[in-house]
């Protein structure tokens, strides 16, 4: 067993959570070997800009990568890129890679993130049909980015709408097809959906809700998107954003407990004491809400990366926070704190029908559980604190814009 000590910590997945774990492991004082194995060719980078400034060409990869190459050298972390882990052999404490290597570990972190959900309709493999998850995806999409080009976005979630906004700003003709009766239906109240539909319409993006995509057509490349009703939307290219699937297969095949994500405790430990998991791929308990969650956000990846680093070095730093998220479309910054699931009342502050800034508070039996804030930092920042302490708030005061957010809790 003594020889195994040298194996140190192996991290599968060189993304947001994996990179955070490297930084936090060294900050925790861990001095042993770290190996960070990633399937993509690039060192760890941030994904949010992929549907925002990086897609728009406003910033290059140097401003998207999380840390410069020297960081990994200085941290004594071996970066093994372009390499897929194909199997975890728990008894032998080994991970096997696609190129036939077997790498030993004392402790393992699974930070495999998620992948895009593909749509399986006729013509799905035609050139010009793209998804958006990686830098590689963006580079392909950018080959179609010319003023005047016709883009059909399939899916009216954050990513689809962010892509639509960037394409519109770059002079493209953009149509968004959404199956539900409103955009972002999975996460926000109809008030917010309708606000974004109005804004996109004003900016000249066509949003069609209640449209199911039945197929893609074209000779040698995609030329139109066909809906269930048989309507055809001509296009030069397509970006599909219909959700993600957590990358749990490695964990599952290794016999770890997997159920809507890799099941971990509040310290990110899996059902194997030598294996932790962090980021998009986990199903974890959240103390604020008293239930299990699977989240897709930078905050979750960072905080779980930190917690995992502690856990892997034998310390308990439980992760329990008010989830938060943001989305940039045009000049609008949407900041979301908390989870609105199960709310009993939505209270609006500001005028979403005419203005470009407002907030919606979600109350459950009077207690604040979430906020959606558009260009409203005070509401977002204050709500983060109030949600954490389960504040009971008066809807009339929340609605009253003459009351400063700092005073909102007073009776």
């Amino acid at each position: 067993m003594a020889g195994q000590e040298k194996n140190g910590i192996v991290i599968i997945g060189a993304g947001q959570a994996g990179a955070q774990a490297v930084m936090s492991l060294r900050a925790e004082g861990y001095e042993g070997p770290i190996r960070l194995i990633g399937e993509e060719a690039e060192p760890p980078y941030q994904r949010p800009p992929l549907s925002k400034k990086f897609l728009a060409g406003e910033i290059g990869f140097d401003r998207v990568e999380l840390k410069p190459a020297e960081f990994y050298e200085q941290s004594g972390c071996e970066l093994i890129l372009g390499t897929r882990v194909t199997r975890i052999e728990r008894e032998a404490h080994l991970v096997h890679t696609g190129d036939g290597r077997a790498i030993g570990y004392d402790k393992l972190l699974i930070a495999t993130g998620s992948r895009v959900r593909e749509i399986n309709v006729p013509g799905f493999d035609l050139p010009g049909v793209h998804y958006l998850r990686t830098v590689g995806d963006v580079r392909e999409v950018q080959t179609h980015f010319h003023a005047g080009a016709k883009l059909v976005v399939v899916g009216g979630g954050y990513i689809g709408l962010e892509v639509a906004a960037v394409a519109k700003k770059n002079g493209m003709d953009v149509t968004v097809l959404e199956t539900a009766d409103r955009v972002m239906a999975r996460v926000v109240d109809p008030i917010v959906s309708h606000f974004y539909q109005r804004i996109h319409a004003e900016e000249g993006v066509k949003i069609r809700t209640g449209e199911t995509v039945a197929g893609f057509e074209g000779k040698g490349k995609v030329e139109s998107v066909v809906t269930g009703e048989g309507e055809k939307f001509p296009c030069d290219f397509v970006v599909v954003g219909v959700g993600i699937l957590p990358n749990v297969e490695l964990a599952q095949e290794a016999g770890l407990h997997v159920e809507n994500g890799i099941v971990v405790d509040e310290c990110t430990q899996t059902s194997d004491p030598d294996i932790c998991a962090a980021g998009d791929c986990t199903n974890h308990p959240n103390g604020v809400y008293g239930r299990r969650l699977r989240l897709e956000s930078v905050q979750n990846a960072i905080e779980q990366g930190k917690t995992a680093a502690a856990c892997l070095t034998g310390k308990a730093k439980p992760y329990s926070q008010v989830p938060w998220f943001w989305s940039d479309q045009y000049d609008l910054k949407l900041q979301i704190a908390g989870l609105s699931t199960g709310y009993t009342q939505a209270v609006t502050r500001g005028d979403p029908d005419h203005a470009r800034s407002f907030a919606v508070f979600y109350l459950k039996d009077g207690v604040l559980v979430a906020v959606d804030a558009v260009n409203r930092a005070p509401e977002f920042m204050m709500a983060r604190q109030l949600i954490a302490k389960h504040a009971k708030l008066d809807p009339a005061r929340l609605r009253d814009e003459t009351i400063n957010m700092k005073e909102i809790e007073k009776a």
Partner: protein
Amino acid sequence: MAKVTFIEHNGKEHTVEVADGLTLMEGATKNMVPGIDADCGGACACATCMVFVPEEWLAKLPAKEDMEETMLDFCEHSEANSRLSCQIKVTKELDGIRVTMPESQH
């Protein structure tokens, strides 16, 4: 290019060279300066990139936009001389600037 000194809460100094056009925040994160988390990567969405700026430098910085102003106003540890370092573009006018970081960004 500007020389920027980041001072940790415990007094430890880090002096780095930052290229024009990058933000002060990037000057720290790209040079492995601890103390600036920058969770949102510069989107002015998280307020985990706060720095304290001495008076003589405050006036030389570009004015705060609304979003930065209000984020700071509601940030638990912010002071009158706080700025979000991701909102400050580095120019040669900032050569020699010294900023202090809070004990924790969370």
